[in-house]
């Protein structure tokens, strides 16, 4: 048997990896069938008995761990609305697509949802890279995207509703909490893409104005698994606290190895903005217990709406499931769209946008309001500490909802960002 030459083998391997990327990019529409509810609520009738909405998250790839849970809560909201009679007297029919953790795929699938499925609105995305990829598609088609995750701000598309926190509702309260706790120096750790890099730019500007020293800034590729070197850099620099914008699987490796290296939350608290209940379960609560996180909602948030939400979610998906901030935002944004469409008497994007202005909704996190201009939500900032049982205990909250300020116009230090 002839042995393959190594060069040829290498070429094959490279081709395979490129092919893998390409096929992962476009071969994913089959996942439509594995989503539990799309089949049951789908009606073949295109004659206007139902209103179609798009759900576009990564159901495969490195981001699936997080995004699948948002899909679940969005479907829960759709079921609730349908049970209560639907929108404008029609049932909502979700069309589920897989963004496959690949940003161009998000753009491609968004286009497909708009032009082939003719959806009234799309709920989707997680990473800022996926949102940036979808933004021109929604703007050029004048279609609506509802985006459920906290992000780095500095954006305000007329066709995107931002249901997650912007910087001044999450990161800045997080920083101010650390400062209040006595942190005078920070080390910034993040994944290597849009959100952490932009967020860190803002954090550095804040730090300069607040006399907090930034001792280091490190990025690792998405999916990175080896944190030994980064941890020894942290140990050399000895910051009072670490500000963590890692995303996805990397958080698990980082916290496990941090604990392995004997660094505790007391020595060096790590403030995370992408670690919620779902991620805590994957990291292992004992590995992350005691570290602070910044969000707008926790499963333990004490409101009647949240008790109903948690109960409904567990009844639908199983008692071992947890709810998290992005899941709550996903749930809320579906309700906000439905309320706006109902108020507008139409699903026409321009009319929905008009109707959504100033709209309020009693969300699990408390009452939220859609900003008149920038289409972000007024949200309460909450700092929590991870408990050994995997839940997050709130230790600080802002006085009521904070007005969204994606461009940080109300902060002097943010000029020139």
């Amino acid at each position, binding site marked *: 048997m002839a042995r393959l030459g190594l060069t040829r083998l290498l070429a094959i391997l490279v081709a395979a990896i490129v092919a893998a990327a390409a096929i992962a990019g476009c071969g994913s529409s089959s996942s439509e069938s594995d989503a539990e509810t799309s089949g049951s609520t789908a009606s073949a009738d295109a004659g206007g008995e139902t209103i179609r909405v798009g759900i576009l998250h990564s159901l*495969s790839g490195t981001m699936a761990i997080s995004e699948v849970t948002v899909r679940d809560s969005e479907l829960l909201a759709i079921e609730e609305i349908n049970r209560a009679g639907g929108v404008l007297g029609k049932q909502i029919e979700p069309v589920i697509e897989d963004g496959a953790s690949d940003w161009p795929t998000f753009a491609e699938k968004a286009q497909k949802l708009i032009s082939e499925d003719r959806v009234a609105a799309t709920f989707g995305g997680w990473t800022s890279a996926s949102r940036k990829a979808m933004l021109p598609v929604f703007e050029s088609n004048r279609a609506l995207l509802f985006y459920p995750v906290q992000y780095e701000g500095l954006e305000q598309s007329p066709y995107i509703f931002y249901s997650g926190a912007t910087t001044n509702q999450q990161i800045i309260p997080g920083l101010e909490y650390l400062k209040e706790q006595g942190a005078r120096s920070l080390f910034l750790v993040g994944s290597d893409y849009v959100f952490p890099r932009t967020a860190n730019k803002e954090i550095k500007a804040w730090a300069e104005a607040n006399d907090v020293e930034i001792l280091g800034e490190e990025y690792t590729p998405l999916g990175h698994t080896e944190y030994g070197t980064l941890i020894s850099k942290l140990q050399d620099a000895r910051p009072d606290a670490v500000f963590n914008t890692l995303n996805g699987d990397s958080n698990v490796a980082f916290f496990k190895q941090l604990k392995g290296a004997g660094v505790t939350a007391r020595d060096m608290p790590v403030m995370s903005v992408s670690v919620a209940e779902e991620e805590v379960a994957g990291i292992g609560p004992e590995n992350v217990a005691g570290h602070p996180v910044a969000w707008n909602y926790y499963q333990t948030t004490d409101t009647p709406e949240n008790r109903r939400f948690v109960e409904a979610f567990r009844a639908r998906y199983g008692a071992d499931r947890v709810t998290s901030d992005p899941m709550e935002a996903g749930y809320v944004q579906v309700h906000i769209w439905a309320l706006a469409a109902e108020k507008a008497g139409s699903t026409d994007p321009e009319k929905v946008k008009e109707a959504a202005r100033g709209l309020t909704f009693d969300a699990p996190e408390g009452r939220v309001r859609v900003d008149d201009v920038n289409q972000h939500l007024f949200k309460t900032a909450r700092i929590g500490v991870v408990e050994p049982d995997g839940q997050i205990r709130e230790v600080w909250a802002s006085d009521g909802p904070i007005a969204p300020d994606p461009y940080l116009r109300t902060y002097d230090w943010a000029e020139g960002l």
Partner: protein
Amino acid sequence: MDVFLSQLFIGLSVASVLLLVALGLTFTFGQMNVINMAHGEFVMAGAYTVYVLQTSVFSASMATLAFGLALPLAFLVGGVLGLILEFTLIRRLHGRPLDTLLVTWGVSLILQQVARDIFGAPNVQVKAPPFLDGGITLAGVSMPYTRLFIIGLVVVALVAIWFYLSKLPAGRRMRAVVQNRDLASASGVRTPRVDRLTFFIGSGLAGVAGVAVTLLGSIGPTLGTNYIIDAFLVVIVGGLGQLRGAIIAAIALGVANAYLEYWTDASLAKAAVFGLIVVFLQFRPQGLVVTRRRGLA
């Protein structure tokens, strides 16, 4: 000096993980010329073996026992998955490396989806045995027990493989097939059987690697994809099917990565290591270690 030593240790721990994942790959690669893209998913299966043992079989207080038992069991799980793959697909695609590559890649996607359907998309949690908590500090270098455990595991695996290959008749037959398949076959070695055994052992090693990586990283359906590319690099730099080469390559890549990352950052270090590999392959396209063959092929 401190930095030098502590980075050396980190480099060696990175190398041990790389090598553990790459060992099985080297085995199947060297023996059968099969690029098994599903190898990473066997690693994932090994990781889920610990999870299942800890959650469904043993109570939480017996985490250590579950973890210890997972090592041989994950070897079996990985091995049996490998056997099934060999028996149903790879055997039928003998001498068609490109087809095997595509087929095993398809299998890897299927296995990922199966894991997602069984265990759910979010990461699951595995408790490290309590005796692996903490670490020791030696000459100013802090060494977590988890890292030391993995290094120890690799050494044990290497000794076992060496013993198998050089002392046992089955291992000698395997070497005979690697060196010259036709001649071995003509001398009465049943090559299909040797192939199956090789695939079993190689895939089993992936399962063991899966147990080890639960100590360091995430356990989810895409776990395999986090490690597979680096494992391929080890195999290619080491020379196809060369255990000795794989060991040297893993250590070289691990240590280079640790120092480069210390001086620059993780993204740059990765790029630099890739660059070094490209240059290296220009001068030694066969990899570090090359067997001289007597075969005509």
